[in-house]
């Protein structure tokens, strides 16, 4: 199995461009997503309250397992699932929101729900945001040589969602 992380750069950077964000937000508001998304309380994606996520029952399992995890007292959904540079944050929320609305409207998504490769990247960045110092020694030296970095959730699969 390929346990490597998707490389950080091109795609994520693409979405961080203002023009792209504008496009996404616009299409979200204007497109077919508009009604369904708002109605489905999809805008809760813009909130930081974990309860906002369980506005959608399909997030129930993930919410429950988060509550059973070691992190439920120290990190909520968006601490892990959304980038934390200011621009990136709203861009990602817009993008996730778009993807969410599309998935929810069409009902066409993988069961069980799986993280998208870019979301993995965001999660990883967030692990490092909080634990970067601690893991500097294990992540750091590799950057000089091989470019692929340590994938935290390869070992810590259950930190965000217990009982798996």
């Amino acid at each position: 199995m390929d346990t490597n992380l998707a490389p950080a750069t091109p795609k994520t950077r693409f979405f961080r461009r203002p023009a792209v964000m504008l496009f996404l937000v616009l299409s979200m508001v204007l497109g077919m997503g508009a009604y369904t998304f708002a109605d489905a309380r999809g805008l809760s994606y813009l909130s930081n309250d974990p309860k906002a996520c369980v506005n959608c029952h399909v997030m129930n399992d993930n919410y429950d397992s988060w509550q059973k995890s070691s992190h439920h007292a120290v990190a909520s959904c968006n601490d892990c699932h959304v980038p934390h540079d200011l621009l990136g944050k709203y861009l990602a929320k817009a993008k996730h929101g778009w993807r969410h609305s599309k998935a929810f409207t069409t009902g066409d998504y993988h069961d069980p729900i799986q993280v998208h490769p870019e979301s993995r990247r965001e999660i990883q960045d967030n692990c490092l945001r909080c634990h970067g110092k601690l893991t500097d020694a294990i992540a750091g030296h590799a950057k000089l040589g091989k470019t692929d970095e340590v994938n935290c959730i390869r070992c810590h699969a259950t930190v965000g969602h217990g009982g798996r």
Partner: protein
Amino acid sequence: NIKKHQVEATVTNYDLVKVDEKTADPAEWGKNHPRQYDSYKRTVDMERTRYGGSEADPKKPDTTYSKIEEDPRLVTMWKGYAFAVDFREERGHAYMLQDQKDTERQKVVKQPGACLHCHASTTTVYRAEGIKAGAPGDGTEDLCSAAGKEQLMKGFDKVCSMPYADAAAMAKHPVACIDCHDPKSMALRVTRPGFLDGIAVLAKSSEPTPALPSVEKWRKGDRKRDYDPNVDASRQEMRSFVCGQCHVEYYFKGDAKRLTYPWHKGVKVENILSYYDEPVFKDGKPYKDFAHKISGAPALKAQHPEFELWSQGVHARAGVACADCHMPYVREGAMKVSDHQVRSPMLMIDKACQTCHRASEAEMKARCELIQDRTKALMDRALNGLCDLIKDIEAAQADGAGDEELAKARDFQRQAQFRIDFINAENSMGFHAPQEAARILGEACDFARQGQVELAKKHAAKPALPKPEVKAP
């Protein structure tokens, strides 16, 4: 508490001394990386587990306990080969050079310099010898440069065919930082010619390698150059490849005693056997390690195929590397570092297993030992069969049976014996690939007993010697 960690964490690696391609001494590297060096030195510690770890031999405290004394069937299996004289439990990396020098196997056979490949820090030794043998450069070049590689390979060839004592005289350290790390970046790298050659021939074979994604990727490319782990492998793969440098089956090829990993057809036991079974000699006979002293069978000896067996297990397929279990991360103050006290994971289940597995320590230990107990029971069964076969061949010989008549039975012995030895020499007692280990031993039972049937049907008019080890079911 979190605050404190964060402050400490600002100092991670020190850059106190400069290490380069000529710095073999781990103490030097240790100045920059004291935590790793400290744990590296602790490989002198000994502690036994049910099937692993290590412990001193009470009768000979400077060595570990003898496996052939524990199980005399091993002596029967290896009769005629140096292993029947001395074979012990292996222990930490710190001892590798000493234990190789001290083994009685050195006394009964003149060993070649090829042995050194896996028992010492040979990177700088090979390069220096390579330069003496005419390779360009002065040994300061990057190992992966053209000059660096040429030095390494020329030196390797030269050292392989030296007498062991001459080679060993050049070695100063057991496996050291420079053998696994690039001094410039500290990134992992493979420095062992045996593995560089071996993995390249494996890549050329047609055997699928789901546990090694970069090999499969290379196969899909243009194949204009050989597969090179230092170029092609992912970091995660390197966490196993650095161990695969030594923890593998090998033989010495030809008169030059070139160390060779028999992966030309794949790394499964039958791939390796079918490589060894090729009629390489003029008389149409295949390679053998020794002629069995009791039965005359053209026998093979397997050695520590950890890398090969691991690659057949579900851990490997799931991307779990040797270092994940044998060098888990430990928290040292404000940092997480890799535990360089390479040892049995059963001595550190919390770190080695429990990050991935949510079960209790006792449960993880029980799962591991259940796998090992099953393997051991099946190995006992197979060994009984093998010893019975050897006895029957012996009796048939005593009765005057000739080589031609015995050829088939001896081949059955070769087949059964290599399989048993593959799992016996492998050091996880089946844990690295539980079903595969059981499959191999099951086949061994079948071959050993088939050998007996074959003989009995030919020669059984006379009842055989007493057979103490056949048990009624």
